[in-house]
């Protein structure tokens, strides 16, 4: 009877409930062990998800850029740090050379070299190639651990941290840039990025000088590793401004930024590639500006302790107006006068149409195109649905970490819309927000289930749940299924889409078996074995790093693309008729020309597909090359309707030489281009100035030798670049004398075959 009069009644707890509470208490005692076990398993997953290509093919460096990093690392391990920072590479950008020491981010090479030397010192010798190939998976495991700490610092809960670590370990866009073999800057840079953010939030939360020093060290490592460090040096000042604006400013944030700012700039200046840009480039202006504003604001806060309210008001307003106007005026002047410069890629971030109009090289890179919706879903899948939930949870009960995550999320999502390659910077942000969202949902739902099964009842005998119990179970089930599908999707994507070494291709036979297409390495090794060591090779810039890495020969242009005019000259050579292309080759001292042709092997990313970019880049510097000349029938085509300019240019001739004799597809005549799906326009032609030196097994790589000049005969007109200026008068006198004395001889025998330009 007494129980029924109570408003809040308690029933006898059921046996099931007692059992589950006992289990819960036991789990709480072993929770730390389970936490570390889960974290270790997540690191293992992160590593093993990325080694599909090593298992399928072999341990080889992928793609294009990693080959240069690998060659630099080899140089570093053989020659040491001093020679590496002073290295002048004469084997690329042929007549110009490249100052590697000053134009490279040394972070990843130094990391691989130090790991290699450390393992050697511990008597575990690991070949430098294997260190480079497996560096990215190992660092992705570190990134997962770092994300755990970052999420835990933001939400103060380990469950969100573990979910964040799992999401980052499996995120497809992060996997795409950190598979085993993809030995590129992003492999270590994403770890440095997440770690810098973790240390920054720790510094802002504790206000300790030591954490801020650690953050600036990690930032220095990021500057050494990747050009994306300008994201960090902008987001931290924006965070400081946001704390001031939202009223969450505390002296701890001031201490953190004041210690971070000078040390970060000092360490950034040490890297030769960055150097003066720390103060001279517009990308760093935000950090300097916010520094001044922060000092002014701190002075204002300090004066609050010493002046009365009225005096403070007059003084404070003057101070803030003066400081603010000075800053605004100063920085606008700096930018307008051009004293500080924006980089081309940064300008593309602010105005996405900038590169297309002014810098065709930046616009032509496939990674710089705008992102599509399907790309977002492919790279994030289930996280896309939890990230807005996490963002909303970050807006409630804000602390430093949540403000930072909100800003990081918004900025990275905006920049990822501009360029595909920036999906990578967005990946950790979305993973962390999704972890916050998913763990928030699971916590609420679990609480409802606990209350439902618990002993508390309200006045009408029902449990005090906010919504019916079926909804809670359904919510839990939906979240669980989404996470399971996320894991399955990541595994599928990592296995099918991102395990492609690009140097080795493979395809399937009709009976399901696999054939390996190893044409690239076949051709590069032919070059390595059969040409003199000082051979110069002309090819499009995509293959430059691979050529210097695998074939060990000198190239004219490579993926660094630092000299647009040189690339335009190569583009002009590829798009000119054969005699003019020959003269350009002779001027550049080229021995071999290399083209990639996919028309025989259904390989669609070959040089004919890229040819219009060669024309555009060449036409940007040499105005006589016009893109419209290469269109036949208002379209880019290579069949019978192709324009005469197209059919006579060097690229056409080198790609389709003797292709008219070959049958490629069932039921089609000879010379059927399987990629363009048409029979080529000009089939029987001979090459006058080039000789075919090597064609790989499936015609993918074709190498041509540049012929020597033919012998001279008396009375021949002088040609471009034939002789030096000092010999010119002698030669002309000689010619004139011969012409006068042998005119009849010439008229009868030599006139019909005289070569004119």
């Amino acid at each position, binding site marked *: 009877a007494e129980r029924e009069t109570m408003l809040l009644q308690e029933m006898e707890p059921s046996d099931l409930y007692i059992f589950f509470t006992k289990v819960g208490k036991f789990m709480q005692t072993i929770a730390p062990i389970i936490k570390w076990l889960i974290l270790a398993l997540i690191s293992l997953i992160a590593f093993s998800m990325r080694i599909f290509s090593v298992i399928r093919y072999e341990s080889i460096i992928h793609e294009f850029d990693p080959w240069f990093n690998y060659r630099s690392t080899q140089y570093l391990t053989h020659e040491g740090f001093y020679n590496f920072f002073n290295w002048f590479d004469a084997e690329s950008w042929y007549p110009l050379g490249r100052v590697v020491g000053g134009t490279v981010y040394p972070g990843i090479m130094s990391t691989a070299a130090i790991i290699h030397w450390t393992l050697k010192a511990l008597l575990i010798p690991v070949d430098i190639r294997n260190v480079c190939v497996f560096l990215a998976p190992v660092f992705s495991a570190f990134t997962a651990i770092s994300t755990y700490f970052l999420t835990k610092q933001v939400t103060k809960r380990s469950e969100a941290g573990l979910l964040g670590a799992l999401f980052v370990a499996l995120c497809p866009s992060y996997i795409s840039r950190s598979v085993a073999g993809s030995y590129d800057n992003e492999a270590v840079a994403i770890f440095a990025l997440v770690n810098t953010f973790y240390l920054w939030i720790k510094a802002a939360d504790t*206000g*300790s*000088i*030591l954490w*801020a*020093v650690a953050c600036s060290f990690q930032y220095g490592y990021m500057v050494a590793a990747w050009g994306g460090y300008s994201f960090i040096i902008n987001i931290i000042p924006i965070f400081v401004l946001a704390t001031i604006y939202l009223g969450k400013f*505390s*002296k*701890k944030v*001031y*201490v953190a930024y*004041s*210690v971070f*700012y*000078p*040390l970060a*700039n*000092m*360490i950034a*200046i*040490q890297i*030769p590639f960055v150097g*003066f840009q*720390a*103060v001279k480039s517009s990308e760093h202006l935000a950090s300097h500006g916010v520094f001044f504003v922060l000092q002014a604001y*701190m002075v204002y806060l300090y*004066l609050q*302790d*010493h*002046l009365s309210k009225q*005096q403070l008001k*007059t*003084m404070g307003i*003057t101070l803030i107006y003066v400081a603010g106007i000075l800053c605004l005026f100063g920085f606008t002047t700096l930018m307008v006068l051009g004293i500080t410069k924006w980089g081309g890629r940064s300008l593309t971030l602010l105005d996405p149409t900038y590169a297309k109009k002014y810098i065709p090289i930046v616009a032509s890179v496939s990674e710089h195109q705008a992102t599509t919706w399907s790309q977002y879903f492919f790279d994030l899948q289930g996280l896309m649905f939890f990230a807005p939930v996490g963002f909303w949870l970050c807006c409630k009960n804000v602390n430093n970490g949540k403000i930072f995550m909100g800003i990081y999320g918004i900025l990275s999502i905006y920049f990822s819309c501009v360029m595909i390659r920036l999906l990578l910077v967005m990946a950790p942000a979305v993973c962390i927000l999704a972890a916050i969202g998913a763990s928030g949902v699971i916590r609420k739902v679990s609480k409802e289930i606990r209350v439902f099964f618990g002993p508390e009842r309200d006045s009408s005998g029902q449990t005090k749940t906010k919504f019916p119990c079926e909804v809670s179970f359904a919510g839990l089930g939906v979240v669980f299924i989404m996470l399971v599908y996320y894991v399955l999707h990541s595994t599928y994507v990592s296995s099918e889409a991102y395990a492609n070494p690009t140097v080795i291709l493979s395809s399937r036979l009709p009976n399901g078996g696999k054939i390996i297409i190893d044409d690239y390495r076949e051709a590069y090794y032919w070059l390595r074995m059969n040409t003199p060591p000082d051979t110069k090779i002309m090819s499009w810039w995509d293959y430059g790093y691979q050529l210097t890495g695998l074939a060990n020969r000198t190239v004219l242009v490579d993926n660094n693309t630092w000299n647009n005019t040189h690339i335009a000259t190569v583009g002009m050579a590829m798009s000119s008729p054969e005699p003019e292309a020959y003269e350009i080759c002779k001027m550049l001292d080229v021995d071999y020309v290399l083209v990639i042709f996919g028309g025989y092997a259904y390989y669609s990313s070959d040089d004919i597909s890229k040819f219009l970019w060669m024309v555009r880049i060449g036409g940007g510097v040499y105005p006589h090359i016009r893109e419209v000349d290469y269109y036949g029938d208002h379209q880019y085509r290579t069949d019978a309707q192709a324009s005469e300019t197209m059919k006579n240019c060097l690229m056409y001739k080198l790609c389709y030489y003797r292709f008219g004799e070959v049958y490629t597809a069932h039921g089609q005549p000879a010379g059927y281009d399987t990629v363009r799906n048409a029979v080529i326009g000009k089939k029987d032609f001979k090459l006058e100035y080039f000789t075919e030196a090597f064609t790989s097994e499936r015609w993918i790589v074709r190498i041509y030798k540049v012929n020597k000049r033919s012998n001279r005969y008396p009375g021949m007109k002088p040609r471009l670049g034939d002789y030096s200026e000092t010999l010119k008068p002698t030669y002309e006198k000689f010619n004139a004398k011969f012409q006068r004395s042998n005119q009849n001889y010439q008229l009868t025998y030599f006139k019909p075959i005289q070569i004119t330009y």
Partner: protein
Amino acid sequence: LRNIKQRFLEQEGIVHSFIESYKANTPHKLKMMDSFIAFTAILVVLQIGYYMIIARHPFEAFLAGIFTPLGAMLFTISLRVIINPDNREEYNTKRAIQAVAEYLIAFLIMCLCALNYMRQITSFQ
């Protein structure tokens, strides 16, 4: 015009009252730190003046010369914020000796960076 004169006199009065309040309320230790802060600020101004008037060529020397005293100034201000008894409610768990140790570490690293930068300049030229 009278407005501006009145404003100016007002500001001067405010500055005087601020100086009186500062002399009265600040402990001796913090005053010594403040003098060091003022000294490093003067160093920064002197460096900028040297750069503008006398010699611009080794820009690296200018950068190192700006950031080292600036860093010293900011570290000392941060230490002052941490051990200021007015900030007790924010920094109640931090011991003063720990803050001083961290300050020394930061200072040391700043000097090491400056030294390394000087070594870089001499080895380039």
